[in-house]
């Protein structure tokens, strides 16, 4: 592993576990507390808390306190980044395709045949 890729490695490590992926799903549209999350798994509260901490370090979830509870939410921004990469590529190639069409209109016959 390359050290400079620390952020990417944390992301991969965080996603490499079924429970953590499940936690991400459950925290997309709601904001369950860690104890409510823990009720859903056959593991200790501490183990679930550890998974949440791993996700938080990777930037995949954010935590906030409400009273005695810690609420967990999937970070929209991280998911959005995956989309942004494809958005950029699509925009770049749409521009290129338009320029290709313009060039074909301008030079119907290629100078090189």
């Amino acid at each position, binding site marked *: 592993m390359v050290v400079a890729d620390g952020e990417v490695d944390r992301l*991969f490590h965080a996603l490499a576990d079924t429970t953590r992926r499940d936690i991400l799903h459950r925290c997309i549209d709601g904001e369950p507390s860690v104890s409510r999350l823990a009720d859903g798994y056959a593991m200790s509260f501490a183990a679930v808390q550890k998974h949440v901490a791993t996700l938080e370090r990777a930037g995949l979830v954010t935590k906030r306190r409400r009273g005695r509870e810690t609420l967990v939410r999937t970070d929209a921004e991280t998911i959005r980044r995956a989309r942004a990469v494809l958005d950029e590529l699509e925009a770049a190639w749409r521009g290129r395709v338009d320029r290709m069409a313009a060039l074909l209109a301008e030079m119907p016959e290629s100078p090189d045949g």
Partner: protein
Amino acid sequence: MTVVSVERDFEELTLVLVAEFAAPVERVWQLWADPRQLERWWGPPSHPSTVEEHDLSPGGSVTYSMTGPEGEISRGWWRVTAVDPPRSLEFTDGFADASGAPNQAMPTTDARVRLAEHDGVTRMELRFKFASAKRMKQLEEWGAFEIFPQSVAQMDAVLADDNPTQEDP
């Protein structure tokens, strides 16, 4: 419409773009095969590009530079992996440092171009696959992208909603 369809596959992290041109396949191929034509469409008008090396044979390289509005120069390269003129071209596209050497820290994209002509119209299918193959393989093995299609669909629904989700009901 030049671009006829765009499909995204979050699971495979690929983008497939299909375009049609009212030109014979050999003519469309020249857009790729002639470096002087390539440099006219590769960079946006704000970033004129210059193609330097241009060898469209397997293992061959294409190198280019683009000059931005402030005079800043960015460089990139292709490594050709497969070619069948005038029907297909596959290459890896990456960034280069100031000397033109591949910048290993930046992600690469695998691109595949397919051209087919029907009734004087050439259909060009561009398929892009993201990131270094090694990273993608790791991700796929771990099943990491299982989460993305569902997450993205859910995120779309959430983001489309102007009202933020109620925090404290």
